[in-house]
C-alpha cells in the first residue's frame, strides 16, 4: 500500500490546473462561485472548449473520442474542474446513454449519436421516473407498442432534468405488459422535437425549473431506435446507474462548496470580527472538511477497485448527498438573516440587482432548499440504506 500520489498523478493534476487557468472563461467561473444560474449556452460553450482541447469526454475510451483516462485521473479532473469553478459536465450523454450505447447499442446508433454528445450537439434527457413510479421505478407504465416499422409510445415522465433543452430522450418503456415488473421494460431513443411530446417545467423550491414533466402522446420511434434487445431495458438501466461510480458522491461539488463556505465565513463580519473566528462557526466548517476528506478517500478507494463495489456505491450516494446538504446548510448559517430576502431573479448573473445583502446571501438559502433533492434523486437515501442492508445481511 502506498497512499501518496505518484509523480505521474501529480503531474496530471498540474496539467489539469494549468488548462483550467488558461481556458476556463472568467464569467463561467464567477457564476459558479456566486451560485448564479448556468444557461444552456454556458454549458455548450464549456463542452466546446473541452472538446477543442481533446478533453470532451473524460470518461470515454479513446476509440470513441474520449481521453482514455483512468478512474483516478477522471476524479482528479472532476475535482480540479469544480474547484476552479467550471460548469459541471452535462451527464445525460457522456455518463449515461453514451456508455450504454458503447456496450449495447448498434453500430448505427454509435455512429450517429456518440460523436454529437461531446459538444452537446444533441442534448439528451433521461426518461425514467413517472408520477406513480419514483423509488419504485420498475412499476413504470409508459407503453411502447410495435406498429409496423415503428414504436408508438404513450405515457408520462416526470423529474426529467433539463428536458426543456433536450433533443433526445433515452426512455424506459413497457413493451410487454404481461411480464413482471423489470422484465417487460425496453430502452428506446425518442426524438423530442416531434408532435406529441409536451414538456412542462416544474418550479422547484428555489424558484428554478430544471426538472420537467414530459407527456408522450402517440410519439413515434423507428424500430432501429431500440437500444439492445426488447424487454432488456432494465439491464441497461442498471448498467447505466453503475457506470459512473465516482460521480454520484458529488465530490467535486463538495470541494467547491467548502471553498465557498470558507470564503463566506472570512468575509462575513459580525461586530467587527470575521465570522470565521467564531468557534461555533469554525467547528462546523472544520468538521465538514474532515468529512469531505473521508468521502474523497472513499471515492478514490471505490474508483481504484474495478470489482463490483457492492454496498459501497450506496455509501457514496448517501454520504455525498449528506455532505452536499450540510455544506449548503452551513453556508446558509454563515449568511444568517441576510439569506432571508430572496427573489429567484437575483440568481441570474445578468440581473442588474442582487438583493439587499452581499451578493452571495440570496443564493445561500436557495441552495439549502435545492440541495435537499440529493437525498431523494437517484434512489432515495432510505432506498439506498435498504440496498446496503440487503447486501450485508445477504437477504
Amino acid at each position, binding site marked *: 500500500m502506498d497512499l501518496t500520489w505518484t509523480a505521474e498523478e501529480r503531474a496530471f493534476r498540474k496539467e489539469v490546473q494549468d488548462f483550467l487557468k488558461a481556458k476556463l472563461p472568467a464569467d463561467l467561473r464567477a457564476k459558479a462561485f456566486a451560485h448564479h444560474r448556468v444557461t444552456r449556452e454556458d454549458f455548450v460553450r464549456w463542452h466546446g472548449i473541452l472538446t477543442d482541447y481533446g478533453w470532451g469526454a473524460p470518461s470515454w475510451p479513446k476509440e470513441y473520442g474520449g481521453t482514455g483516462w483512468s478512474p483516478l485521473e477522471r476524479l482528479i479532473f472532476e475535482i480540479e474542474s469544480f474547484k476552479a469553478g467550471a460548469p459541471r459536465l452535462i451527464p445525460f450523454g457522456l455518463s449515461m446513454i453514451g456508455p450504454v450505447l458503447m456496450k449495447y447499442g448498434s453500430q448505427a446508433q454509435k455512429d450517429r449519436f456518440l460523436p454529437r454528445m461531446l459538444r452537446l450537439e444533441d442534448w439528451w434527457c433521461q426518461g425514467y421516473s413517472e408520477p406513480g413510479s419514483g423509488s419504485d421505478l420498475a412499476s413504470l407504465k409508459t407503453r411502447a407498442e410495435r406498429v409496423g416499422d415503428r414504436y408508438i409510445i404513450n405515457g408520462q415522465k416526470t423529474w426529467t432534468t433539463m428536458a426543456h433543452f433536450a433533443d433526445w430522450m433515452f426512455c424506459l418503456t413497457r413493451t410487454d405488459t404481461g411480464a413482471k415488473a423489470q422484465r417487460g421494460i425496453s430502452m428506446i431513443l425518442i426524438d423530442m422535437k416531434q408532435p406529441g411530446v409536451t414538456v412542462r417545467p416544474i418550479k422547484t423550491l428555489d424558484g428554478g425549473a430544471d426538472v420537467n414533466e414530459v407527456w408522450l402522446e402517440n410519439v413515434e420511434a423507428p424500430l432501429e431506435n431500440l437500444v439492445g434487445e426488447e424487454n432488456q431495458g432494465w439491464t441497461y438501466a442498471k448498467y447505466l446507474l453503475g457506470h459512473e461510480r465516482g460521480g454520484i458522491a458529488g465530490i467535486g461539488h463538495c470541494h467547491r462548496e467548502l471553498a465557498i463556505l470558507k470564503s463566506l465565513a472570512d468575509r462575513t463580519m459580525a461586530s467587527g470580527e470575521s465570522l470565521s473566528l467564531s468557534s461555533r462557526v469554525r467547528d462546523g466548517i472544520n468538521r465538514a472538511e474532515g468529512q469531505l476528506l473521508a468521502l474523497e478517500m472513499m471515492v478514490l478507494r471505490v474508483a481504484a477497485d474495478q470489482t463490483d463495489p457492492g454496498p459501497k456505491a450506496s455509501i457514496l450516494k448517501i454520504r455525498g448527498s449528506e455532505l452536499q446538504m450540510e455544506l449548503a446548510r452551513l453556508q446558509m448559517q454563515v449568511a444568517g438573516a441576510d439569506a432571508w430576502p430572496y427573489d429567484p431573479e437575483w440568481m441570474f448573473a445578468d440581473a442588474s440587482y442582487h438583493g439587499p445583502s452581499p451578493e452571495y446571501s440570496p443564493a445561500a438559502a436557495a441552495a439549502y432548499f435545492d440541495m*435537499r433533492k440529493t437525498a431523494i434523486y437517484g434512489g432515495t437515501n*432510505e432506498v439506498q440504506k435498504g440496498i446496503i442492508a440487503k447486501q450485508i445481511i445477504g437477504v
Partner: protein
Amino acid sequence: MDFEYSQEQRMLTDSLRRLVEDNWSRPKRRERQGAGVLNLNAWSSLVELGIGGLLVPEEFGGFGETPATMLAVHQELGRGLVSEPVISSAVIAVTLLANCQNQALKQQWLTAHAEGDAVLAVAWQEQGERDAQRPLCTRATVSKDGYSLEGRKILVWHGAGAQALIVSAVLDGEVALFLVPADTQGVSVQDHPTFDGARAATISLKGVQLTKTQLIASGVAAEQLLTLALDHGIVALCAHACGAMAYLTDSTIQYSKTRKQFGQPLAAFQVLQHRLGDMLIQSEMGLSMTYVATNALGEPDAAKRSRLVSMAKVEVAAAARLVGEMSVQLHGGMGMTDELEVGDYFKRLTYTDMLLGDTNFHLQRMQDLNAA
C-alpha cells in the same frame, strides 16, 4: 397550572382558525404574496378578531392579553402560514411601545394599532452586525428642535408596510429608540421579497429631523425595552413554528398513508414510520419548550427571562429544521416542487432559526447570561 384554553381563548382560536382556513388558503395566500404589498383587507380581517390590539393595554383600546393567549393565537397563525406583520408589528413593536414611558406616543400609536389604523416595524439590525441588538452605525445627534438621525437599517420585517418605524440609534454613546413616521423627510424604504413570502426592507435615514417627543427611550431603559420586545417576538415566532410543525406533521402523515410505492403505502415502511415519529417528538418538545418560554415572559428577572427565551429559540429552531427537512424527504420529488404546501412550510420553518437571532447568537446569549 391549567393547560385548557379559557372560553375566550377557545372562541378566539376557533374564529381565527376558520378565518385562516378560509382566507389563507394556498391560492389566496400566494396571490397576496405575489402582489408584493401588504393587503389591507387581510390585515383588517385579523384586526377585527382583535389581533391588532391583543397585546395593547386596555387603557389604549386593546385587550391587554397574557402571553398565554399570544401563544395560542400564534400557533393558529403558524398553522396557516400567515405572513402578515403580526409578529413584527402586533407583538414586537406593540410590546416595545406598551412598556415605554412616553405617554403621548403610546396614546397615538398603540390606539391606532389596536384600531387597525397603523402597522409598525422595528428597525434594529445593521449591516455587519449580525444579530447584535446594539446599533453601531445609525447615529442620532441633538439638534435645535430635537434630534437628527443618520444611518441605514436592514432586514426590517414588513418595513415597507409600516406607517411608523421604531429605529434604534446611538445617541451620546448610548442606545436610543425613536419613533419615526415612515413619511418623514429623509426616510427611504427599499422593499424586498423574502423566500417565505414575507417582506423585508432596507431603510436609509438621511438627515431625518425628529422632535424631542419622538424619543421613546434612551440608555439602559432603551436596551431593556428592545430586549423585552424581541423576547416577546421570539416566543411568538416559536409559537408560529409550532403551529406550522403541527400542521405539516399531520399533512405529511396523511400523504404517507395515500402515496404508494412497491405496492404499499409509504406509511407501511418502518424507516418512514420512525421518521414520522421523530417529527412528532420534535413538534411536541418544541411546543413544550415554547410553553416554558411563554411562562418566562412574565418573569421579573430579565436575565432569567432572556435565558429561557434563548433556550426555546434554539430548541424550536432545531425542531423546525428536522420537521421541515423530513417532510420534504417523505414527500420525495413532490416535496422539492413549488406546487405543494410542504415547500411553503419548509421555507417558513427554515426562517425560525434565521430571524431574531440565530442558534449561535442564542447559545452565546445563554452563555453570557449564565456568567452574569
